[in-house]
């Protein structure tokens, strides 16, 4: 009986996470790594898109005969419906390509990809996540896209293209991007009779003061802000302090900077800008539509820009705005960067990588395909596509697109992708932040423990 329960529905029903990057269990990660090793041993050497194995077509190397392509992604029903429509549009333009779409949920996707890649039978076009990009690129499962003639990168910001590089080689093209921002519930502010200060040049001190003022006015019903958590947030915090979170193999942020980050969480919690430590812990795992920001109990929320759609929907259409993060020096440094919400890559087992790259091009750069995908994966990376689809977007997605465009004018160099072994980053960070807000550890102790724990995880990977 044990076998039936373990393999079956128990896992399906048990998992109820909605975080941005759900951390896969340790055993799954180990399987993934083992599989990566096997894939390497099977001799799936990396090859570039220049070398098509089919007879090359008229000009750009696309196949002329009948071929088949498989595209694979994770996601919910809406994404599958939109992506299938985009694939239908591609089929109409390429009658010789027998194109099939495959989808699955997040964890099932990585289980299946790990096995299929080891068997040399991965889907040809793969949706990829930053957590796994380095692993699959390093083990030769992905094709280098640098020379793909079918992939037009002229309308994409080079800094965004760089997000898909591993060790200088382009292994993945961002499908869409988002940036970190402060979401403000304007309805709530006007109910409390508070007006938003100049957000283009505010500092963290001003932010804390403003959030505390909201909590004071809210008299227990409404509080000011969420904490400034998550890997994305800590990356930006390090950049605001002139450091970086990672290099290729180490966590590089200094202990003093992390300590200051922890101290800020403690000050906000103790001083009333954010909710009490126990309330934060209680709300830590609820879905977006049950969180305090959706239910009108929290005025500001620090999160990724593309989530604003979900928050607007969950709050029954509250007036929400995206504004710049506070900084130490009133937004003088170019600390921001566009983060790839997810990527597209081509598998090295693909027989027609040129055509596969052509499909990615169609999804990302061609309004004929992108108009079906809209902004469900994040804000489109191609400026022409963005202009073409913006009128079709919902309010929240339009806000996010406008905000990404605004921030993009002032971004710095893209950070390197997190090294292998950091897949559990979010849960480790929130555990240490919680230790601090509950008074179990000092900011200095937590910073030291946090950095060494992450480094050990990288070293062991």
């Amino acid at each position, binding site marked *: 009986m044990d076998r039936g329960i373990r393999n079956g529905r128990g896992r399906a029903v048990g998992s109820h996470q909605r975080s941005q990057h759900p951390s896969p269990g340790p055993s799954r990660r180990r399987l993934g790594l083992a599989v990566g090793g096997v894939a390497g041993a099977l001799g799936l050497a990396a090859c570039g898109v220049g070398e098509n194995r089919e007879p090359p077509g008229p000009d750009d190397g696309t196949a002329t005969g009948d071929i088949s392509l498989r595209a694979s992604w994770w996601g919910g029903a809406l994404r599958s419906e939109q992506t299938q429509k985009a694939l239908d549009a591609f089929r109409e333009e390429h009658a010789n390509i027998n194109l099939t779409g495959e989808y699955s949920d*997040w964890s099932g996707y990585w289980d299946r990809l790990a*096995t299929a890649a080891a068997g040399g039978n991965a889907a040809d076009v793969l949706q990829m996540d930053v957590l796994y990009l380095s692993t699959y690129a390093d083990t030769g499962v992905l094709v280098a896209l640098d020379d793909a003639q079918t992939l037009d990168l002229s309308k994409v910001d080079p800094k965004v293209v760089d997000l898909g590089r591993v060790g200088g080689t382009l292994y993945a093209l961002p499908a869409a991007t988002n940036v970190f921002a402060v979401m403000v519930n304007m309805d709530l502010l006007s109910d409390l009779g508070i007006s938003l200060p100049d957000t283009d040049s505010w500092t963290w001190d001003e932010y804390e003061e403003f959030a505390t003022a909201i909590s004071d006015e809210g008299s227990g019903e409404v509080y000011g802000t969420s904490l400034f958590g998550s890997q994305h947030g800590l990356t930006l915090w390090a950049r605001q302090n002139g450091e970086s979170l990672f290099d290729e193999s180490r966590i590089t942020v200094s202990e003093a900077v992390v300590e200051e980050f922890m101290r800020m969480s403690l000050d906000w919690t103790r001083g009333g800008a954010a909710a009490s430590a126990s309330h934060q812990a209680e709300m830590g795992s609820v879905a977006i539509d049950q969180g305090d920001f959706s239910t009108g109990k929290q005025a500001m929320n620090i999160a990724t820009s593309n989530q604003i759609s979900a928050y607007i929907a969950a709050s029954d259409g509250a007036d929400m705005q995206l504004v710049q993060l506070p900084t130490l020096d009133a937004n003088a440094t170019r600390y921001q960067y566009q983060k790839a919400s997810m990527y597209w890559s081509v598998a090295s087992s693909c027989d027609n990588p040129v055509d596969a790259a052509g499909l990615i091009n169609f999804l990302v750069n061609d309004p004929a395909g992108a108009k079906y995908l809209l902004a469900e994966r994040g804000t489109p990376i191609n400026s022409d596509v963005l202009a073409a689809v913006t009128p079709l977007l919902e309010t929240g997605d339009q806000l996010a697109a406008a905000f990404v465009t605004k921030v993009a004018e002032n971004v710095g160099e893209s950070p390197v992708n997190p090294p292998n072994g950091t897949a559990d980053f979010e849960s480790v960070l929130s555990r240490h932040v919680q230790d601090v807000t509950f008074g179990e550890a000092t900011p200095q102790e937590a910073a030291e423990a946090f950095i060494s724990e992450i480094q050990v995880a990288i070293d062991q990977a």
Partner: protein
Amino acid sequence: MSVVKHVLLIAGVLVSLYPILWMLVSSLRPDGQIFSNASIIPTTFYAQNYSEGWNALPESFGTYLINSSVVVVGAVIGNLITCSMAAYAFARLKFRFSRIAFALMLLTLMIPVHVVIIPQYVIWAQLHLVNTVWPLILPKFLATDGFFIFLMVQFIRGLPRELDEAARVDGASHYAIFTRIILPLMTPALATTAIFTILWTWNDFFAQLIYLTDPGKYTVPVALRAFIDVQGQSSYGGMFAMSIVSILPMLLIFTFGQRYLIQGISTTGGK
């Protein structure tokens, strides 16, 4: 004394039934109320979850139920035919290396499934049978379920040899002894095998996930996962509703089949 015993037993039943009852009640709640409410007392009757869940995925849920049924029927037929034949050979025939073969068969029970997944996948990929039901059914026709072979071997060893010998004296071949003497007598073991195969195959997720890639070929456990989207909107109400639909057949089989389950196991391995 018996009052205490009954109170304890009833408390135990309630604890183990709670998750299923919660799933049933949650399947009748709107999405927003599911995780804010741990009570199993129904407060709403939101039956739309069932109609919406049935049609939420690209194929209607009936397709996935049929796909699962095909795999289950194939697996049951395969296991019943080949495991019983292998068990007869181990229990009654004398052949070279039979002890070693038996030990190897038991060894397959002890190898963790993760070790064999990739080699098996490579074989099926090279046979170009990935994305068909064959990787899920064909192995069952090759007597690869050591657990059931072992179960049936133990059962056959408990049957009196005099029956075989009497048939042999009457001139029966091995085929006749197997089909006319042993098979009819081992009905409880066959029933146990059938029920366990149905339950395990119906609930199996991993093999069906990796071998069936075309969404139109998905089975029930794989399709149920499609309701969850960790990075966006999940439809938990629809998922719980369809989970209820998918455990109904198993519940029926278990209710009517549990007599055989107990009989089949308690009569193996001697007295």
